[in-house]
């Protein structure tokens, strides 16, 4: 399988709010949203980017689609650094790489009919008008909205959340992309509707041979949709491997805590205390060495001095922890 996306030491720092004292001292504090990511995604894979808020997963999604430029490091798509794409190459990239948004109620221009919203990518890609109808029909059928006519003349406010998200997905698929990033695509939908969208996404991935990245904080959903899970914490990858393995046998202390923290819809579940100290925001500044060390119950001296590199601990599995050396 060919590598489609490759991230090398990817970093994205944002300027943080400056206090008066910082200004006096000429300092510009930064938020290290993404702090050195290394990963590869093979063509056809279905990868989940999992983490809590502030871990950098959303920023990574936007970096992968070149919606924001990296501070350091590089992201390659199909072998080419996306930061260097321009002109025709960039236009081509925008056709083959798409994004599905978190908020279906806002992802479509409220003044456009569904028809117009679906046509937008086709117009931008300069596809012949004659082909539009057919492409729209195919895309809508993929998302299980086969009666296209029922939707085309309507406006977003007339559709339910589930229907809207399907339309957003159809719009993302209409140019037959190779790579789709979905950012929390069901978090704003009712639970009974989520399953429908998730099933459609699984189906579409299989049918179209897409390479998909699914960003979420919900471990159970990621495990349901994705065959591979990358766990992020404070801008770094802490664990990476097949979803089933990561859930059943987590290697990194953070992943262990995460797995245990997720409640399940069964009464007989563990109420044991989590193997983790404190909350995320007790962390004022990114710790030196391992970013997780001040919440890790197993931290020792080396964790403060040295950042653990992400390394392969078994075929297809990586983790960044000194305990695993």
């Amino acid at each position: 399988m060919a590598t489609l996306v490759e991230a090398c030491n990817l970093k994205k720092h944002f300027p943080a709010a400056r206090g008066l004292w910082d200004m006096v001292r000429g300092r510009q504090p930064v938020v290290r949203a993404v702090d050195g990511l290394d990963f590869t995604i093979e063509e056809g894979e279905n990868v989940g980017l999992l983490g809590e808020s502030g871990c950098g997963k959303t920023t990574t999604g936007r970096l992968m689609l070149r919606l924001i430029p990296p501070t350091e490091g590089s992201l390659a798509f199909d072998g080419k650094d996306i930061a260097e794409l321009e002109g025709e190459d960039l236009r081509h990239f925008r056709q083959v790489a798409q994004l599905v948004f978190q908020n279906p109620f806002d992802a479509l221009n409220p003044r456009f009919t569904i028809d117009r919203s679906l046509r937008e990518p086709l117009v931008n890609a300069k596809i012949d008008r004659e082909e539009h109808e057919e492409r729209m029909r195919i895309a809508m059928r993929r998302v299980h909205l086969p009666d296209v006519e029922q939707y085309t003349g309507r406006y977003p406010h007339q559709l339910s959340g589930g229907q809207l998200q399907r339309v957003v997905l159809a719009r993302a698929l209409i140019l037959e992309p190779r790579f789709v990033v979905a950012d929390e695509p069901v978090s704003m939908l009712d639970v009974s509707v989520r399953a429908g969208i998730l099933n459609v996404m699984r189906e579409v991935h299989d049918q179209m041979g897409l390479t998909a990245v699914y960003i979420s904080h919900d471990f159970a959903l990621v495990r349901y949709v994705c065959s591979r899970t990358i766990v992020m914490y404070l801008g770094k990858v802490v664990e990476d491997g097949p979803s089933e393995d990561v859930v059943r046998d987590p290697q990194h202390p953070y992943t262990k805590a995460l797995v245990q923290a997720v409640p399940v819809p069964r009464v007989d579940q563990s109420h044991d205390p989590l193997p983790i100290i404190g909350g995320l925001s007790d962390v004022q500044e990114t710790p030196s060495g391992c970013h997780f060390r001040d919440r890790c119950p197993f931290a020792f001296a080396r964790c403060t001095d040295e950042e653990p590199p992400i390394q392969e601990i078994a075929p297809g599995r990586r983790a960044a922890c000194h305990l695993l050396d």
Partner: protein
Amino acid sequence: MTVLSVQDLQVHYMTDRGVVHAVERASLDVPEGQVVGVVGESGCGKTTLARAIIRVMEKNARIVGGRMLFGDKDLVRLSEAEITKHRWRDIAFIPQSAMNSLDPVYRVGAQLVEVLVDRGGLDKGKASDRAEELFDMVGLDGQRLRDYPHQFSGGMRQRAAIALAIALDPKLVIADEPVTALDVIVQRQVLDVFKSLQNRLGVSVILITHDISVIAYTSDRVVVMYAGEVVESGPTDKVLTAPAHPYTMGLCKAFPDLQGSGGTLVPIEGSPPDLLDPPVGCRFAERCPFAQPVCDEAGLVLEEVAPGHRAACRRLSEADTLRSQAGEVDTWQRS
């Protein structure tokens, strides 16, 4: 001992487009010292119900029927003055966004002390001590009493809101979606706070959420709401393992189980009915794969399936058969 018994509560909203039948046939019992989870999706009426219990509702909301027995009093019949006495001392409320409980311009400790002094009648010294005690109970560092709300993280604010709620040692605490906005690790920690309070103080909790896994983790009893009505209620383990109402059956299958085997999730196609003009019969019939003509008839009530376990469905007697069918994805597939 039952702390609260809500019977056939009806709440309507008077809007310029007509009457919205937000809550109908809402019945639930909260036994002493237990956590009752109210689960349902957006628009099912759970928040309306919660606010009706403490009678802090929108201006255009009216309780048009039913009773809410708290001790020997009917909360529906009490005057505003009388119910004010009960608010916070006997029944406390944690609204959906914890920030709503906390005034951003005052220190958190000061807000706690204010409640203790004004409504609890404690003197300042005792109030300060009690505030520290409360923070300790919810797992917050006493030093943080001097901070302002914006200095607290989401999880900490939620804990502070809980501390505020239990300040006067109420019998009942109603928490509206207390963990929805929190990350999963913090969520777990906050849910553990609720459990520990239940154990230490014997306080009863009504926990409102859309997440059945949260219910499974915390609640002794569960009440399932759909389109403004209670469709099923009972002990959590019974309702989750042997649901009697098709909606509950579907809902259980709609949540992925991280520890489970990863079977296919089941979507429930369609959307809830418009509450301006709801159907007279079963409100779920439109989306129910087992609906029959009798389901559209009026007069559907909650019936007992087993001791303490009730559901409102015309086909209750066939619940076991329906349940096994509900396990198949095809059952829920529509053309």
